[in-house]
């Protein structure tokens, strides 16, 4: 299997997984965004909601990194700029969810 096919498959699998996770997240977020401090902390870091939130951000950043790299492919002509943009994109897709998960699990 060539790398472009693998990339397409990863994009489709993560996209399909993201649909129910997005529905779950937005329904809960609308319900809790103006609640108190402890409700928000409980949602992001405790129990099943904390676990699903962690899965959600990992898949969301993975999916976004692949799909935004497609946008770079379509709009950036310069190979060097495209490479730097892709590296920064993949780095942020690892670092942001990782830091968030470490912080929310250390409370």
């Amino acid at each position, binding site marked *: 299997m060539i790398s472009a096919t693998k990339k397409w498959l990863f994009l*489709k699998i993560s*996209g*399909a997984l*993201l*649909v129910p996770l*997005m*529905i779950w*997240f*937005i*329904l*809960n*977020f*609308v*319900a809790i*965004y*103006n609640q108190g*401090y402890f409700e*928000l*902390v409980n949602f*992001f*870091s405790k129990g099943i909601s904390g676990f699903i*939130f962690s899965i959600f*951000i990992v898949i*969301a*950043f993975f999916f*976004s990194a692949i*799909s*935004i790299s497609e*946008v770079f492919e*379509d*709009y*950036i*002509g*310069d*190979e*060097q700029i495209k490479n730097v943009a892709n590296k920064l994109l993949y780095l942020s897709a690892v670092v*942001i*969810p990782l*830091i*968030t998960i470490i*912080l*929310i699990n*250390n*409370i």
Partner: protein
Amino acid sequence: MENKRPLSPHIQIYRWHISSLVSISHRITGIINIIAITLICFLACVLMLGEESFKIIEIFFNSVFGKFIILGITWSFSFQILSEIRHLVMDLGYGFELKTTKITGLVVIVGSVILTILFYLIGKNFF
């Protein structure tokens, strides 16, 4: 090194169709969503710093602008959900006829507004 191949999708050249509108909106909402998720991650991290840091977040979410942002994120998520389902169905080989693409495109656009209202009402326990 400059790549000489043409860049797509030539949005300034072709006449706009519902499919092109849904396609470009799918990309724009995808970028909006990842910015929103990044900010939500930041919010989660700020919350972990303690109750004092929550005051600013509370003021923001209770303001008109904050509520507008929440509604905007809800619409952007709704659009992405419906558009992603449309893409997945098309990947299975269905819905390529011109008439069907127009109908499903309209379903995504109109449906995203309806879904936003539904998400908001369900989230706020109106049902």
